[in-house]
């Protein structure tokens, strides 16, 4: 257990030591999103009755921060270690691939939840927000960040340079997050886009998380939980296979 706890502790320290960059900066970005979008759209967009656009936006922004930071944590840690060569310090000791996976994903969950909590605490003062089913919200936050932590590991293992990882982040993660319903409800989209959005797994994470606040969502929360849970099982299996085979880590 010491091996796993050490790796987890090291990964936790790695982002905490640069908390301005890894925690404070995404919180500030989310506040800016909220201030700009809610001021511009508050009186024009009504999604749920008795819920302002600003209040609708907050859970989406929280979850977007959770997902993006969970992905950034594991992917940047792996790629930095690979590029600088210090990954050798983790490959030489008797660390099993399961310990490696567990520590990196848990550290990603920790960073995702830390930033998400920070965004929530910083933005909740601007809007009138209820939390009708907190356990659903927590479940989606944990599962969502675990999914992105695993996906970050896959991207970090696959990428050989920062450029490739940035491409993954900008051309896969960012569009999927922005098109998942952070800023809008699926019901406001044309039917074709509504159908297409159901193929975006990020939609279920954000929609399920939002259900925890408003008790209302575009998809049934149990369906969303099943999709997100299945996605985590698939991503975990893929990541564990990569780690076990030593793909792009051990020659």
């Amino acid at each position, binding site marked *: 257990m*010491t*091996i796993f*706890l*050490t*790796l987890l*502790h*090291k990964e936790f*320290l*790695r982002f905490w*030591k*640069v908390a301005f960059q890894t925690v404070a900066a995404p919180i500030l970005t989310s506040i800016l999103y909220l201030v700009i979008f809610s001021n511009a759209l508050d009186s024009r967009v009504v999604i749920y009755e008795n819920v302002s656009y600003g209040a609708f936006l907050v859970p989406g922004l929280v979850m977007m921060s959770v997902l993006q930071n969970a992905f950034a944590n594991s992917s940047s840690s792996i790629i930095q*270690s690979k590029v*600088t*060569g*210090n990954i*050798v*310090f*983790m*490959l*030489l*000791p*008797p*660390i*099993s691939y399961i310990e490696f996976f567990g520590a990196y994903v848990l550290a990603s969950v920790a960073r995702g939840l830390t930033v998400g909590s920070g965004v929530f605490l910083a933005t909740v003062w601007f809007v009138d927000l209820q939390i009708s089913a907190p356990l659903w919200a927590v479940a989606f936050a944990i599962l969502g960040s675990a999914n992105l932590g695993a996906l970050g590991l896959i991207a970090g293992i696959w990428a050989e340079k920062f450029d490739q990882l940035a491409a993954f982040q900008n051309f896969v993660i960012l569009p999927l997050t922005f098109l998942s319903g952070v800023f809008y409800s699926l019901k406001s989209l044309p039917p074709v886009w509504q159908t297409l959005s159901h193929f975006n797994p990020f939609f279920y994470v954000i929609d399920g998380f939002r259900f925890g606040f408003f008790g209302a969502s575009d998809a049934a929360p149990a369906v969303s939980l099943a999709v997100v849970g299945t996605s985590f099982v698939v991503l975990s299996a893929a990541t564990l296979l990569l780690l076990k085979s*030593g793909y792009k880590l*051990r*020659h």
Partner: protein
Amino acid sequence: MQPAIRINEVRKCYGTLQALDGVCLEIMPGEIFGLLGPNGAGKTTLISVVAGLARADSGSIEVMGADVIVEYRRARRMLGVVPQELVFDPFFSVRETLEIQSGYFGIRKNGAWIDEILHNLDLTSKADDNMRSLSGGMKRRVLVAQAMVHKPPVIVLDEPTAGVDVELRQSLWKFMRSLNREGHTIVLTTHYLEEAELLCNRIGMLKAGKVVALDSTKNLLENFSGLYLKLRVDCTELPADESFHVVSRDVDLFTLRLEDFQQLERVLAGLRRAGVAIREFELQPPDLEEVFVRIMNRH
């Protein structure tokens, strides 16, 4: 006696390059073993395969009896590796780096041993400094310390003295000798043949992924017996004589290769007969560099 490292018929290809071609090697406990070879000979690949950083295409490797694939956890606990590249984690101080490395080997409270390593490697004053702030030499010391945190019986150093100053090189030699006296098996790759000659009991030479020489340092030097005679004379040409072979010449300074001491008298007598006056005279035994060059040229 069980070998500290047993390498059996190991082969490894990178694309079309045969990096290791059926390497067989046994390194016994308590040895300081030198692994020599030109660039690209396969030294680092061999170390990587032993350490689990790379996987052999075929063959097997054991560290203190533990197979590096099947019993990788036990094998890695037996092994400390100092990598060739000067790598470090910029997020941590020296002490944090060593504490984390201890944890990776399952050791929680390792403060006393870490203090001792820091002292032995002259790093105590740098313990709380961030890794980024250290000089290259200091970073090299930390790499050695990281390989030592779990007190491995076998320590592999991949060119530990490459690019370090004389003072650090000598302190590393001293440290390696003291580790060896305490019972650690040391495996060393180096391009400094003087270093290998000075430290190693036994030497293996690799060329194109094959072991081309494997013997004690003493035997290697004796088997390639011969002497070098350096002469500064009063002329720029030596008389043709079958009793000696001129290896090199710089104006009036000639280096002659002799097979043995008996040949010395014949050479001197021949020079006297030819009327050549000797101004300076120096006799040198062959060194490992000469042995290395001859073995590499032969294969």
